[in-house]
């Protein structure tokens, strides 16, 4: 490992975003869905020491860490208490370009990580749907990417992290040395302590392109069959699915699978060209003040129709820039504003392999209700990692929905029942409305997690709105 401060070459990560608030300033916070704002005092500790100081004096309503605020719901909110923004805790403590091990501060984003290591022939091991996610947040939610079916979730690639506990002491947590604490913190939604630094194993790449094979599937059965048959041949796999198509086209999809392109796969010109780089453009920004109802069902049907028809029936080996394959939405800043003042929610479920019927019923109900589900994706998961990690081997379906529709509440409650009954679950990092009674059925390891959590936080210092809403544990402070 290189020593302190020797930031390797390549693009220097941009400065942490300015939140525009003084330390401890009362601030209304929401998640990415912009629903259910609550007030907390927002602190910006500069380093692990200041995190420890804040944890030692948590105040009456406790605290929780926050990164870039990409959880859709209330995971990084703490009404009436403190929220610690970790965005200034983002130093690179060491990077070994030979082994691909890197130790970075929890506030470092996955996008910055990609920018930093790609010129050295390395890449983040897991990329969620946006690059604007911090390493700390990626551990707290144990995020997954398009490679989950083969390579698991983010925490499968974490070799160690530094955890500051309530009371203020810091410990090094590793999968081998402290397996219980590791498994409780991976996907533990920030309620076992504050992660201030993590050591990750990167993956080696030769180019900054992805070689993508695209194929259209005429319906749900077709796409599932194609995925079962071919997913293992690809590192990355994801299907865009039309949740508004009905009848024989129910669940028609565009399947996009690929792997990092090798040098040999680039054309001569590209091979001799520029160095590896990760530089997603940010050209558009959604305007503020968009009214509700812009993303209506008819508008989405039209979009889906065009998207499906425009996609190639079958295309092999197209080379795409990394960001355009992984994060097509990142080029639009604040796209969540397109949902208007009442915001959006993301519904992400997983059902185990063998429960394909439940998945089919979900898609049928979405199409039948003409629910304005946008940007729905289907993917297959491999094994899970932490006690509350979302992934289990099975099928995961994700969609965005406008929050401003009251009829959505009973409809989604019905989907929850179906998912829980099939042995599936919802993703806590996306959740903003689950009925708390279903939590234990969805997360069978919840009891064990609560024990480990209570051991790490006996006084209930770590609190979040998500924890309060779902009665997750932690957050005994009211």
């Amino acid at each position, binding site marked *: 490992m290189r020593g302190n401060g020797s930031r390797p070459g390549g693009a220097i990560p941009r400065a942490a975003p300015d939140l525009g608030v003084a330390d401890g300033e*009362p601030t*209304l916070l929401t998640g990415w*869905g912009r*629903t*259910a*704002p*609550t*007030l*907390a005092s927002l602190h910006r500790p500069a380093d692990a020491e200041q995190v420890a100081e804040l944890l030692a004096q948590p105040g009456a*309503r406790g605290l929780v860490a926050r990164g870039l605020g990409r959880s859709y*719901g*209330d995971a990084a909110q*703490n*009404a*009436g*208490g403190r929220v610690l923004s970790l965005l200034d805790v983002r130093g690179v403590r060491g990077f070994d370009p030979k082994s691909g091990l890197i130790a970075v501060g929890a506030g470092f984003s996955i996008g910055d990580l990609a920018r930093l290591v790609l010129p050295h022939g390395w890449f983040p091991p897991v990329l969620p749907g946006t690059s604007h996610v911090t390493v700390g947040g990626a551990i707290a939610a144990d995020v997954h990417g398009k490679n989950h079916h083969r390579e698991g979730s983010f925490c499968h690639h974490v070799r160690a992290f530094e955890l500051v506990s309530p009371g203020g002491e810091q410990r090094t947590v590793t999968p081998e040395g402290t397996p219980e604490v590791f498994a409780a913190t991976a996907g533990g939604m920030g309620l076992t302590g504050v992660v201030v630094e993590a050591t990750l194993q990167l993956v080696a790449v030769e180019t900054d392109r992805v070689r993508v094979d695209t194929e259209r599937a005429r319906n749900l059965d077709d796409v599932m069959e194609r995925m079962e048959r071919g997913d293992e041949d690809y590192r990355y796999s994801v299907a865009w699915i039309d949740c508004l198509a009905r009848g024989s086209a129910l669940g028609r999809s565009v399947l996009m699978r690929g792997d990092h392109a090798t040098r040999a796969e680039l054309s001569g010109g590209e091979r001799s060209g520029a160095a590896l780089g990760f530089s997603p453009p940010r050209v558009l920004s959604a305007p503020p003040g968009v009214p509700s109802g812009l993303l209506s069902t008819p508008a989405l049907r039209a979009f889906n129709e065009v998207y499906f028809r425009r996609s190639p029936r079958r295309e092999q080996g197209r080379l795409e820039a990394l960001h355009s394959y992984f994060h097509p939405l990142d080029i639009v800043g604040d796209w969540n504003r397109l949902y208007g003042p*009442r*915001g959006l*929610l993301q519904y992400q479920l997983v059902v185990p392999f063998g429960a394909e019927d439940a998945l089919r019923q979900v898609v049928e109900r979405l199409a039948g209700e003409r629910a304005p589900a946008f940007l729905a994706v289907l993917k297959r998961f491999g094994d899970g990692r932490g006690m509350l990690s979302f992934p289990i081997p099975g099928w995961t379906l994700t969609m965005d929905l406008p*929050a*401003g529709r*009251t009829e*959505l*509440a*009973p409809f*989604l409650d019905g989907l929850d029942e179906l998912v829980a009954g099939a042995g599936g679950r919802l993703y806590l990092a996306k959740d*903003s*409305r689950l*009925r*708390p009674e279903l939590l234990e059925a969805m997360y069978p390891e919840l009891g064990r997690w609560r024990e480990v959590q209570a051991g790490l936080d006996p006084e209930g210092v770590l609190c979040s*709105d998500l924890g*309060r*809403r779902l009665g997750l544990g932690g957050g005994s402070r*009211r």
Partner: protein
Amino acid sequence: MKDALGSVESVLVLGGGSEIALATVRALVARRTRTVVLAARRPGELESVAGELRAAGATTVETVAFDAQDDAEAHGRLVDDVFDRHGDIDLVLVAAGVLGEQSRDEHDGAAARAVVGTNFLGLVSAIVPCAERMRGQGHGTLCVLSTVAGERPRRSNFVYGSSKAGLDAFAQGLGDSLVGTGVNVVVVRPGFVRTRMTEGLDPAPFATTPEKVAEAALEGIAKGSHTVWAPPVLRYVMSVLRHVPRPVFRRLPL
């Protein structure tokens, strides 16, 4: 906590005997609400309602004594006790109120004072500590039941109307003061509602039911509205009536 679709987990009702309040609480429990505290003048009479709410899925249902005519200190103690014992209260529904009897009240100082004392003063002294606790918890909704009769006092029920006008104005101002705190105030202005309170009266135009008012209130709570009219058309009716000249207005058969 309130969720993304506006459902709440806990509610305190001031005036738990109100039919509009009970219709609202039933609808809340049918969604997510599990903790219900009904504060009413005669809590004993609410036991069967409490049982019904438990059967519908509420895990904690409590009835406590609350009289709007009690002093501010008693109100403060009651509110603190409820918030201390149940943790966060996501929604406070302010529904207590009396109609009085106009023909008597306008000639009887004590009777008029009792109406204003209950509908305005008594609720103000209970709302203030609720708002303070909600500021502290960083979230919450105060839903205040007003009436269209408070929008412009009418000859036929101005004692009641003026008491509600005071409450309505107070709630609006409080709502503005709470902007940015995570706490929202929703003022609900129903028209004529067919309840025990209005039994025997001739229904005014656009008469509605407690269930319809409850539905509108819940929609307003979910949206984070500041004013809810029930039925919605009354917003436009009242915006016209507000500008009718006094000599004409007092002759209108309202």
